[in-house]
């Protein structure tokens, strides 16, 4: 006969083992796909000619193309984020407050572009925006301009196409948060004398802030690392950090330098994430609640 206490403890131990077993595949995948490459990245970034060296980091101070590229990247990411918030908030609001039938339509339209590849969408923008593209032809046809306007191979094209791809990443966390705001609170606000604007600014907007933070962080971080779209629509002139990395690898075969850039960018993102998590708990940013 065993003591009931030991029984319980054995049961608990078995449960803990079971949980571990269930977690194992996920842990293994994360380790192989994330932890190992990151560690490798970190090691590479401090290695030159097979020995430890900070040479790759010293370059950040020496060459101003690094500086300017980081600044440009952060600026574009910021512009894209602000625009995505401005465009995404009303869409999410509509999806969250319209009757169910219509909100499904709105969300469907938001999600639809996910079914086409980023590459295809970038080329589509090129077709539309190039010198003899649809947009320029239309503008000239209407007599609004005499000459084609430069719409791609610059910041404008980069921002526009990046924005197009990232807006859904703003809308979805916003929608998830808004849709959880109890309708009763809005009715209560109205019954207590709050007009529509007052209820929006005093009740709805503050309660949607977790979604705003989540969407903002998500879009900003994604925009920081965007590669294909800026590469195709920036025409080499909008030199973002991701392109800096690829040039280092493809042209100069400088894995160490590329790794160092990656590490710096990662640290920037981590710092941002940490700042954001001080405002809103991480679980919320990730959309869990």
């Amino acid at each position: 006969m065993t003591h009931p206490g030991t029984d319980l403890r054995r049961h608990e131990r078995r449960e803990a083992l079971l949980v571990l077993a269930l977690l194992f595949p996920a842990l293994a995948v994360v380790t192989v796909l994330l932890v190992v490459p990151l560690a490798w990245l970190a090691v590479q970034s401090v290695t030159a000619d097979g020995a430890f060296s900070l040479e790759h980091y010293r370059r950040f101070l020496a060459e101003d193309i690094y500086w300017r590229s980081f600044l440009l990247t952060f600026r574009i990411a910021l512009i894209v984020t602000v625009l995505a918030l401005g465009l995404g908030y009303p869409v999410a609001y509509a999806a969250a407050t319209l009757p169910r039938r219509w909100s499904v339509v709105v969300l469907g339209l938001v999600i639809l572009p996910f079914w086409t590849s980023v590459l295809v969408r970038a080329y589509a923008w090129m077709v539309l925006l190039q010198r003899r593209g649809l947009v320029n032809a239309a503008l000239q046809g209407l007599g609004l301009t005499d000459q084609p306007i430069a719409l791609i191979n610059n910041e404008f094209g980069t921002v526009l196409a990046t924005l197009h791809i990232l807006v859904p990443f703003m809308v979805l966390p916003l929608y998830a948060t808004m849709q959880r705001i109890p309708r009763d609170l809005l009715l209560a606000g109205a019954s207590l004398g709050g007009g529509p604007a007052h209820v929006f600014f005093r009740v709805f907007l503050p309660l949607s802030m977790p979604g705003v933070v989540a969407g903002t962080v998500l879009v900003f971080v994604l925009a920081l690392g965007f590669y294909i779209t800026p590469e195709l629509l920036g025409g080499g002139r909008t030199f973002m950090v991701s392109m800096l990395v690829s040039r280092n690898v493809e042209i100069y075969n400088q894995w160490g330098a590329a790794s160092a850039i990656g590490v710096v960018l990662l640290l920037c993102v981590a710092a941002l994430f940490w700042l954001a998590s001080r405002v809103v708990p991480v679980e919320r940013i990730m959309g869990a609640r």
Partner: protein
Amino acid sequence: MAAAGSNSGVNGGPLSGGSIGVSIRNATRRYGAFTALDDVSLDVAPGEFLSLLGPSGSGKTTLLGILGGFTVPSSGSVHFGEADVTFVPPHKRGIGVVFQNYALFPHLSVAENVAFPLRARREPKGTWGRRVAEALAMVELAGYEDRAISQLSGGQRQRVALARAIVFRPRLILMDEPLSALDKQLRESMQIELRRLHRQLEATIIYVTHDQREALTMSDRIAILRGGRLAQVDTPERLHDRPASAFVASFIGESTLVPVTRSGPDSVALGAATLRSARPLPEGAALLLALQTEKLIAAGDSVPDGYNRLTGRVTDIVYQGESLKVFLALDGGPEISLRQPAHHAGRRAIPPTGAPLTALIHPQDTIIVPAESA
């Protein structure tokens, strides 16, 4: 505009803003083919405490929504005093609403929640502090100003919701089952508190509940809803003594409905027994006798004059704390139940299971209602 009414009541507290009559005329609300509210007309006097009572889905919340402006009636109209407010949006109605789940703003503190209506109405900022403190004192939550909503118990939340609904002196307050989430003890003390507040505020209160005891405790009048229609609107006493239908008779109190036949202008036959009622019988051929458990008396050795008698056999005795519930199979007929106080004398009057027992009921308590026409 909310506090435009008189504010001069001698016994009115600092928050009293006068009261206003409400009149609902032929209000109907349809959802597609379904009629949630069917031609309801109801007048509520200024300062009255009226409860809407009815089973789930009977249209109580729908009716309250029409009063609050959250739901527009498909037809009919709503009047506050002289004014037709049928299409006036909620924020212009000047009413206080307490929602079933409180609907407190989770991102605001207690004081900010209570100040919300003052801010929304652009009341002078200098008065907010004092008025919030007054309202919180009224619900006995003084000193809780800076608490977060998540740090309050259910009963405290309920009281914050109440303070928020009364702080701007509404002339009409709507409450949708505000006490349903509370435990029995707290609910009963809140009922007493609400009665006190009602007197102090002098506001008209329309109160939704599906707890008949709660409605009886607090209301001047009770409107009983059934399937979107008003079954009866009356004082608690009259609902008890003169239910208009079998539905009301079975819904109010605890009663057994027994089919009887007409045997005279004011008497009915139940098996061999004849029962006299103090009131004339209703029209119609099919009649029911509504036997309320607490109105039946177990006859002891002596049978007083003037009572109707029902004889039968005890089939079960259930001890329920303060009372006994005794089941009695009537001679040649249905089973009824009666409630006997659990004190010694009361218990001695009940014979053991299987023994014969005579139950008495006074003609004043003998209630005859028309049977439902199917």
